């Protein structure tokens, strides 16, 4: 079994996401300015920071839901943000995303939700697609709920079903937008365990937006911390190393409470 500390030292791993000089915003208000970073294969990479610092905006830009004002994103060594729509769609097959609201398609059952990406992007038979969908749902503890509609299950189950859908095509990179938001501590821990298992089993790269400090310290190999004032990255590295070595009071204040929780737990 690989643990996160081993993965931090994996500097030799190829870069899977390269963000170069990204600036993004809404209606003329710049949220992020000239942000550059890279994510390596099999990393658990966290984008952290206080509310309103642009974490979700950055994530949406990385997956192509927002167009950057300047700069570019490369995914798996190929241009992504500047590519044309068919090229981008082809590249999206390597990506999965768990949305904050889970964003399950409400008119489809959980099985149909997981099946849809497979139906669209593969030539598998109906039987094979169903088998994969059932397997993915079972892996995330949703066996027996395959024919339920999203409105009929709890928030935690929706998150897991959303994750099953994100993993349907066995993507190389999975993006998570606040995966622990609105979950109770026990469900959060279960989700942590499942996320860790995915990373360790398939070597999947995880890009997670969060400010859940307990999960950051438990899962992250590397974090970047964004700041609302400077609209840029103010710290980068392993969260435990950052906590020990940083002199920046903003980073220290942010990470300190989380480290206390970990020690108390």
């Amino acid at each position, binding site marked *: 079994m690989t643990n996160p500390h081993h993965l931090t030292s994996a500097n030799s791993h190829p870069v899977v996401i390269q963000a170069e000089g990204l600036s993004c915003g809404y209606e003329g208000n710049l949220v992020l300015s000239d942000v550059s970073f890279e994510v390596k294969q099999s990393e658990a990479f966290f984008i952290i920071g206080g509310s309103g610092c642009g974490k979700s905006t950055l994530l949406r830009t990385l997956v192509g*839901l927002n167009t950057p004002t300047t700069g570019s994103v490369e995914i798996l060594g190929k241009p992504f943000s500047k590519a044309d729509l068919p090229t981008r769609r082809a590249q999206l097959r390597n990506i999965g995303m768990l949305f904050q609201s889970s964003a399950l398609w409400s008119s489809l059952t959980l099985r149909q939700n997981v099946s*849809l990406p497979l139906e669209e992007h593969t030539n598998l038979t109906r039987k094979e697609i169903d088998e994969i969908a059932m397997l993915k749902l079972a892996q995330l503890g949703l066996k027996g709920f395959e024919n339920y509609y999203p409105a009929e299950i709890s928030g935690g189950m929706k998150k897991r079903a959303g994750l099953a859908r994100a993993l349907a095509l066995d993507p190389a990179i999975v993006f998570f937008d606040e995966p622990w938001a609105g979950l109770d501590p026990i469900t959060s821990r279960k989700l942590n365990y499942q996320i860790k298992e995915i990373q360790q089993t398939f070597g999947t790269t995880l890009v997670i937006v969060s400010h859940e400090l307990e999960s950051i310290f438990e899962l992250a190999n590397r974090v970047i911390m964004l700041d609302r004032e400077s609209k840029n990255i103010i710290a980068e590295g392993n969260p435990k190393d950052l906590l020990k070595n940083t002199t920046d009071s903003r980073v220290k204040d942010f990470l300190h409470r989380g480290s206390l929780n970990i020690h108390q737990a």
Partner: protein
Amino acid sequence: MPAASKIHLAEVSVEKLGDTLELTLSGTWHISAPKPSWNKYSPDPKTINCIKITIAHLKAWDTSLLLFLGEVKSWCTSHKIICNLSHLPDSMHHLLLSLEGVYETLPPKKRDESLLTAVGIATNQAWYNTKGILSFIGESCLGLLRLPTRIKKFRWGDWIDHMQACGVMSLPIVSLISFLVGLTLAYQAAVELRQFGADIFIADIVGLSVVREMGPMMAAVILAGRTGASFAATIGNMRANEEIDALEVLGISAIDFLVIPRLLALGIMMPLLTLYANCIGILGGMVVAGGVLQISPAAYWIETQSSIDLTDLGTGLLKATTFGLLIGLSGCMRGLQSERSAEGVGKVTTSAVVTAILLVIVADALYAVLFHALGI
């Protein structure tokens, strides 16, 4: 009166000691209860140089007390009188400071703009809207064209569900409206025709107007209100719930997944509903002809058959198919343009109906010109 129901109202007692006015606050200060007004107690500012505020027998207090203190303090500041609050508890001091801070915040965001800026923004918006509409129509056409290549992936189940929702489920309302329209047309015509003894031509008037104009138009208006609004609300809601984003991130075209099945459902069900509406409209005319002009159903039917040919029927059905596609396009397009809020969904629903009816009427007018030019 039972003791429990006694209400201690907010009270202020005032005592003047030399040049100091001592205010003692007591009782229960509650925001929903009457609050003493400082204007009632404020003295002549020339007679004092200090106001001392104390509390005694204060049962309970909330923001109403702070508002009163705020009034006193600002009066003191404006009249250059010392306001001694040192006898108040710390918690009150803190809140009072916060209350003062309310007025010290940054000026509100300037939202009004010059005429030139407004015109610029509106022009920009109009350009983006036009681009959005053209791009949506283009993508939908491409989606329809690539349908044969991805026929296996076409969502047949959704298509049938949409056909049922917009076709079968609309039958009762289409029946009622079409029958009443046929009936109204016949009544209007009957009065005039009787004067000339041309009673039998009621079948021609009703038949031609219903088949060429009223059948497709009424079916379109009903579907614009019923189905167009439903499409916009459903898709708008999906947008608000990030379901459309989920499609995009998974590399699934929202046009293929959401728009094409709906467009095809309406494109097929509209002519069928129009045929049905035509029959019911003619039936409405037949009832009036029988009741008012004593024309037998057989005679009415033979006259209708002789007046309507396949060209009339064809033009009506061609219009109906166009109207169906326009309603589908309006509903889906407005839905995809929705903002991510409940209000946004409401707005696009209204907008979808208005756009659909507008486009239907414009298309109808264009068809009228075209058919006239072609002589059909």
